[in-house]
């Protein structure tokens, strides 16, 4: 295993909190009902089923704007949709878990067919981003990438899902790597991993000694996509550049595991491995859950009774960069894990401008300046100070001595900026439409006037002189 060729600015060494990394993953039993998330990347999915419909495991129930389907994770009856701040599709499980017919993955096919098959399998980025893999492959091919980067870093404290997949099913991931590299024209692959994941590294090296493993600095957030590009090339990405600009396509290890499962069985995505961790739990580990498995039921399987659960704050994705998740939410394809804490959030003190946040920011931003703008609701100030470049890693949040919830502020700021930009775009379109309409009206009136004059002239003959 070699070291990454470069280092990244900022970052912070945090305790891994992965003492439970070697615990074997559990298989949770099917619950009575599932709540499938109907929102992906801020957009609502389009339903392709209706209340009362009977579905099998693998039946398509919704699609996103790119045509990526969401499949029923088990057989049962659609009870309907619910909305409690987010849209959910409720499926009552019949317990039989009957599967729809799946076409086995045939012999080598064209790139277009492969991409269509990946799309139909419902594979999206399972490292939290949720971006449809088929779109990523099309963009990668168009940009002529030369390397597939497997993101197995999983730098977030407490999360052990990716590393458990590598440890227990390295061949699945290896096969997926081969398939993607072949589809993209025979490119090479690199596996970026944190060197402290010793068991996972050993398993991967034993199963696939031919794979190129690269150790990243054991610092948070080495696993962020943009940071990974900096580590592997010597050129950090510009503000609006994507990894393909450096010839790289970055895919999360769990996404590759889903590809591997599909290659082996032909089955679409119906489940994922989630980490269940945090100081609020006595038992920690990972669990295979169906998409839509309600969070409350997942932690109950780890020995948390209802009374204890009411005292827990759960975060989807870890303590640093995760978001609070409701106990009634259903696991999404993008849910990395559930992190449980009982700690109350301390009151924030004012910013003392110590500058620690800027020291750890991997994008070289000045979070204290962003914070000053955010508290005054100055959207223009936020954008000028570089809010768009913020990767929401939360390192600044971790080090702030005044315990200011910087990540929450910046996420809210991004939402506000997006809302304003959308409103401005709509206003701009409306303005142009009105201007065009006025122009047309004027032209119509002018030409009508001209015609009227011509008719008058024809009737009266030339003017007397």
């Amino acid at each position: 295993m070699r070291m990454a060729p470069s280092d990244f600015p900022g970052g912070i060494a945090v305790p891994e909190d992965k003492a439970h990394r070697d615990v074997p993953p559990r298989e949770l039993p099917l619950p009575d009902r599932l709540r499938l998330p109907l929102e992906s990347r801020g957009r609502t999915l389009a339903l392709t089923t209706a209340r009362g419909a009977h579905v099998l495991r693998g039946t398509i129930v919704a699609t996103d704007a790119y045509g990526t389907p969401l499949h029923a994770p088990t057989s049962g009856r659609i009870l309907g949709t619910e909305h409690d701040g987010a849209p959910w599709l409720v499926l009552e499980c019949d317990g039989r878990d009957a599967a729809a017919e799946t076409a086995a993955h045939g012999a080598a096919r064209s790139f277009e067919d492969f991409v269509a098959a990946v799309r139909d399998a419902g594979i999206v980025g399972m490292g939290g981003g949720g971006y449809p893999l088929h779109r990523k492959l099309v963009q990668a091919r168009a940009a002529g990438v030369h390397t597939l980067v497997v993101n197995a870093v999983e730098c977030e404290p407490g999360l052990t899902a990716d590393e458990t997949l590598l440890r227990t099913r390295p061949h699945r991931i290896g096969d997926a790597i081969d398939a993607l590299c072949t589809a993209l024209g025979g490119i090479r692959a690199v596996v970026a991993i944190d060197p402290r994941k010793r068991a996972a590294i050993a398993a991967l090296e034993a199963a696939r000694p031919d794979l190129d493993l690269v150790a990243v600095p054991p610092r948070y957030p080495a696993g962020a996509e943009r940071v990974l590009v900096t580590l592997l090339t010597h050129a950090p990405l510009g503000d609006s550049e994507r990894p393909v600009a450096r010839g790289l396509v970055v895919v999360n290890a769990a996404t590759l595991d889903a590809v591997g499962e599909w290659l082996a069985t032909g089955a679409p995505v119906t489940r994922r491995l989630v980490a269940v961790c945090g100081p609020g739990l006595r038992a920690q580990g990972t669990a295979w859950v169906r998409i839509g498995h309600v969070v409350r039921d997942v932690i109950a399987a780890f020995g948390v009774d209802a009374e204890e659960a009411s005292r827990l704050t759960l975060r989807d994705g870890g303590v640093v960069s995760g978001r609070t998740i409701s106990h009634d939410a259903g696991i999404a394809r993008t849910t990395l894990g559930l992190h449980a804490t009982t700690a109350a959030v301390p009151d924030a003190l004012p910013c003392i401008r110590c500058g620690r946040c800027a020291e750890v920011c991997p994008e070289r931003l000045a979070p204290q300046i962003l914070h000053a703008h955010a508290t005054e609701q100055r959207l223009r100030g936020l954008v000028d100070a570089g809010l768009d470049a913020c990767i929401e890693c939360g390192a600044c949040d971790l080090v702030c001595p005044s315990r200011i919830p910087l990540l929450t502020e910046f996420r809210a700021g991004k939402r506000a900026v997006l809302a304003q930009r959308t409103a401005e775009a709509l206003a701009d379109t409306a303005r142009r439409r009105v201007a065009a309409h006025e122009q047309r009206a004027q032209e119509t009136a002018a030409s009508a006037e001209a015609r009227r004059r011509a008719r008058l002239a024809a009737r009266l003959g030339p003017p007397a002189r």
Partner: protein
Amino acid sequence: MTRTTPRIMALVALCLVPGAAASTLFFGIGVLANLVVAVLTAAAVEAAVARARGQAPGALLRDGSAWVTAVLVALALPPGVPMTVVLTAVAIALLVGKAVYGGLGANPFNPAMVGYAAVLVSFPAALAVWPDQALGAVDGSTAATPLDVLKHRGGATVADVWSAANGFGSVAGIGWEWVNAAYLAGGVALVCLRVADWRIPVSMLGTLTLFATIGYDAGSSDSHGSPTFHLFSGATMLGAFFIATDPVTCPPDARGRLLFGALIGVLVWTLRTASAYPDGVAFAVLLANAAAPLIAHVTARARARDAGAAS
């Protein structure tokens, strides 16, 4: 990672202990009296401000910054100064130096220096005298500080002054050199604990040394005191490590802080040699505080240019 703002304030107070102890040792029990009055005044003022804002009385004391301000003011003032002066200084520091701007983090000027400067110009006589450190001086007598003596020596050479006025020790004033050494020790600890940014004391002391070296011509009647004299006199070390390093009132980035420290160094030397005041640390810090936003604007833009060039 569990370093919170109150803990940072506590560390600052802890690192002030060597200097405060040396001060008490050489200048007497008056130092402790100043500390007590200052701390009590701080508690009362912050409680009043909190009440005026509709908050609980202890709300503003939670972050610990008021205690630090009080201690710094108390250590800057001469022991034996009237209690009303101490009270006024601390009250002005917390009200005019901090509260009117919106509280912790919002003030442009170092609160302790605002309070100290206010009483310095209001009660110049009371602040000019410190306990006499000359050999054989009667206990309880006061005298001008070594910086003061050097400034008002007329046409004497430095060597003359040193032998005549008995308040001068090996490198600087008796007592003063030890007090400064103690603040230096506490200050180095503060930097090693990564509470104070090393750039400010290094650039301040470095610039002061540079200008003092240029201005010292081996002690003729026109020269201004050697570099070591300046480093170990007056409020140099206290200012360098505990006052100039206040993160709220200095530029936020590395390059800006180096400039800021250098500016203070230049100003301290200039004020000591050319102004009417014997020690210039307080005014130097306040002037640099005023320049801090401009420095930050210039150096932050410089950083954005570097980052832009790299991408």
